[in-house]
C-alpha cells in the first residue's frame, strides 16, 4: 500500500512537470507584463519611460531572459537570481504587483479558504449524487426517477455563474425577509483563519452555505447520472439476483450487494468532480467576493502575472492529482479485484 502510494506519487511528477511546462509556455508567451507596465507608466506620466527603468523591470521579473530559461529558473531557482524565485527552494517568484503581494503569502492565506469550499462542495455533491442516483435506479421509471433525472439534466445545463448570482441575490432577499443576516453573501468569513478550527468553522458557516450549495449543485448532476446507470447495471446483475434467491431481504440486497458494488465506478468520478469544483470555485469566489485562490488566479490572469498564474496552476494541479490518488486508493479498497502491487 505504502509502496503503491509512493509509486503513484512519483508517477505524478512528470505529469505535473508537463502541465507546468505547457502552461508556462502558453501563459508566458501570450503576455508581456513589462510592455504593459511601461505603457501604463507612459499613460500616467505622459513621458517616455527611460531604458534603465525598463531594464530594471525586466531584471526584477526575469524578463531579461528567454522563456525556457525563465521556466528553468522558476522551477529550480538555480543561477543568477534575486533570491525570490525557485519553486524547489520554496520560492514562488516575483509578482508584478510588487513585493506587497508576495505570491507565497497570498497563496498560503487563500489556499485554505478555497480548499474548504472545494472539499465541502465535492463531498456534498458526491454524496447527494449517490443518493439521487440510487433512488432513481431503485425506482426506475417512476415519477421520482423522472423528476430526479430531469433535475439532474437541469443542473447540468445551468451555468454556475448564473446559479451563483441567483442564489446570492436570493439569499440577500431572504435575509431581508427574515430581518436578520442568516446568510453572508460577501466575503468568506470575519476572522480569516485565526482562532481554533471550530471557531473558524462556526464563524465562516454563514458565508460558506450558499457558495457551497451552488458549487454542489453544479457538481452533483453529472455523477448522479453515472451512479444511476451503474446502480441499474448492478441491480440487473446475476449476483444481485442470486442474493435475492438466497432469501436476503430486498432492502438488504440493495444496500449490501447493489450499492456496495455500484459505488466502484463512481470512485472514478471523484477527481473529475474535484477539478470541476476547482474551476467552479473561480466563479463562486468572484461572485461572493471571497479572497480565495480562484479569484487570485483571475486577477493574475487579468494582470498578466505569469508567476502568480503558475502558482495557481501548480496548486490546482496538485489538488487534482491528490484527488486522483485518493480515487485510486478508494478503488482498491472498494474492489478486491484491484491489487496494489
Amino acid at each position, binding site marked *: 500500500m505504502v509502496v503503491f502510494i509512493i509509486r503513484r506519487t512519483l508517477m505524478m511528477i512528470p*505529469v505535473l512537470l508537463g502541465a507546468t511546462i505547457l502552461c508556462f509556455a502558453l*501563459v508566458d508567451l501570450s503576455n508581456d507584463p513589462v510592455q504593459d507596465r511601461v505603457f501604463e507608466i507612459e499613460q500616467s506620466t505622459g513621458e517616455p519611460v527611460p531604458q534603465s527603468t525598463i531594464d530594471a523591470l525586466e531584471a526584477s521579473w526575469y524578463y531579461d531572459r528567454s522563456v525556457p530559461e525563465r521556466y528553468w529558473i522558476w522551477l529550480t531557482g538555480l543561477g543568477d537570481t534575486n533570491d525570490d524565485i525557485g519553486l524547489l527552494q520554496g520560492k514562488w517568484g516575483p509578482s508584478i504587483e510588487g513585493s506587497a503581494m508576495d505570491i507565497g503569502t497570498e497563496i498560503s492565506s487563500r489556499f485554505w479558504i478555497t480548499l474548504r469550499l472545494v472539499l465541502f462542495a465535492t463531498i456534498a455533491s458526491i454524496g447527494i449524487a449517490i443518493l439521487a442516483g440510487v433512488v432513481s435506479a431503485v425506482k426506475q*421509471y417512476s415519477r421520482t426517477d423522472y423528476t430526479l433525472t430531469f433535475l439532474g439534466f437541469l443542473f447540468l445545463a*445551468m*451555468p454556475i455563474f448564473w446559479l451563483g448570482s441567483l442564489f446570492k441575490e436570493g439569499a440577500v432577499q431572504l435575509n431581508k425577509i427574515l430581518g436578520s443576516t442568516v446568510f453572508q453573501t460577501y466575503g468568506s468569513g470575519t476572522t480569516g483563519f485565526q482562532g481554533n478550527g471550530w471557531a473558524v468553522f462556526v464563524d465562516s458557516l454563514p458565508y460558506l452555505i450558499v457558495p457551497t450549495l451552488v458549487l454542489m449543485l453544479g457538481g452533483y448532476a453529472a455523477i448522479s447520472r453515472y451512479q444511476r446507470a451503474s446502480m441499474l447495471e448492478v441491480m440487473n446483475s446475476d449476483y444481485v439476483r442470486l442474493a435475492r434467491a438466497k432469501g436476503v431481504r430486498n432492502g438488504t440486497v440493495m444496500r449490501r450487494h447493489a450499492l456496495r458494488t455500484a459505488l466502484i465506478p463512481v470512485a472514478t468520478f471523484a477527481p473529475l468532480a474535484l477539478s470541476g469544483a476547482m474551476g467552479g470555485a473561480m466563479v463562486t469566489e468572484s461572485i461572493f467576493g471571497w479572497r480565495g485562490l480562484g479569484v487570485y488566479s483571475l486577477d493574475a490572469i487579468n494582470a498578466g502575472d505569469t508567476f502568480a498564474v503558475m502558482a*495557481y496552476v501548480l496548486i490546482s494541479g496538485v489538488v*487534482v492529482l491528490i484527488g486522483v490518488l485518493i480515487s485510486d486508493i478508494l478503488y482498491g479498497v472498494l474492489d478486491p479485484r484491484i491489487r496494489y502491487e
Partner: protein
Amino acid sequence: MSNTAAPRLDAEAITSKERGQWELVFRRFFRHRAAVVSLVIFVVVVLFAYVGPFLWKWDYKIHSEIPSWAAPSLAHPFGTDKAGRDMLGAMMQATKQSLNVALVVAIGSTVIGALYGAVAGFYRGWVDSVLMRFLDIMFVIPFLVITGALAGAIDTSVRWYHMAIILAVFGWTSIARAVRAEVLSLREKEFIEAARSAGGSDWHIITKHLIPNTMSVIIVSATLQIAFAILSETTLSFLGLGIQSPDTSLGLLIDAAGASAFNEHWYLFYIPGVMIILIALTINFIGDGMRDAMDPRQTMVRR
C-alpha cells in the same frame, strides 16, 4: 440435405421486418419524447438567433431613441438595458455568438478528439502511452485558467471565433478518451484485420474504417460538446475573459445584469440565463436520445 434445407417461415411469424439501421435509429430517437421536444426547441432557438435579426427592427447596438431600462412591452418584448439597448435584439445577437462558438467548438474539438483517440487506440503500445500521458497533463491543467489566459492575451477585443478556437483546442479530451475506448474494442474485429491484410495504409484504416465505425460515439459526444462549449464560453465571458463588447454574448449580458435577479430589472438577468439553460438542456436531452437510439446498452432515460 436440400429437402429440409430451406427454413420456411410463415409470413405471420415475422413480426418485424428487416429495417435499415438508420431507420431504426430514427425510430428509436423519435420514441424518446424529451429528445424530440428538445430538438424542436433547439431548432426554434437556432432560428431565433440566425433568422430573428432579419425580422426584428432593433439590432444589439445602443440607439439613442431607445429608452433606458424599459420593462418588457410590445415595443421591446425583452425590455431594454440601462444604456438603451433593445434586449430582444441583443439576445438574438448574443445567442448567435454563443451558438457560433458552440458549433465551431463541437466540430473542431470532435475532429481533434476523434483523430487523437483513434490514433491512440489504433497504434496502442508506446504511441498510446505517450498520447494518454498527454491527456493526463491536459486533465491537470485548469481549463478556465488556460483558456482565460489565452483569451486575455488577445490584443484586439475578443471575438467569437477567438473563443471558438481556444475552446476547441482545449476541449477535445473527453472525446479522445471515448473514441479511444471504442477503437480499442473495435480493433480486434475482423474487418479491421481484413482491411490490414488488404494492404490498407494505417491512415486509410483509421479514417475509412475505425472512425466510421465509432460514429455513434462521435456523434453523441459532438452533440454534448455543444452544451459544454456554451457553458464554457458564457462562463469565460461572464468572468471578463471571453467575448468582449462591442460584441456580445449571453455571459456578458448576465454579467451586465449583475444583481438584478430580484429587482425591477429581473428580465435582464433571467432571459439570457434561461436561454443558456434552454440550449444546454435541450442539447443534453438530444444527446441522450441519440445515445439511446444508437447505443441502447447505455440507456439513461426511457420514453
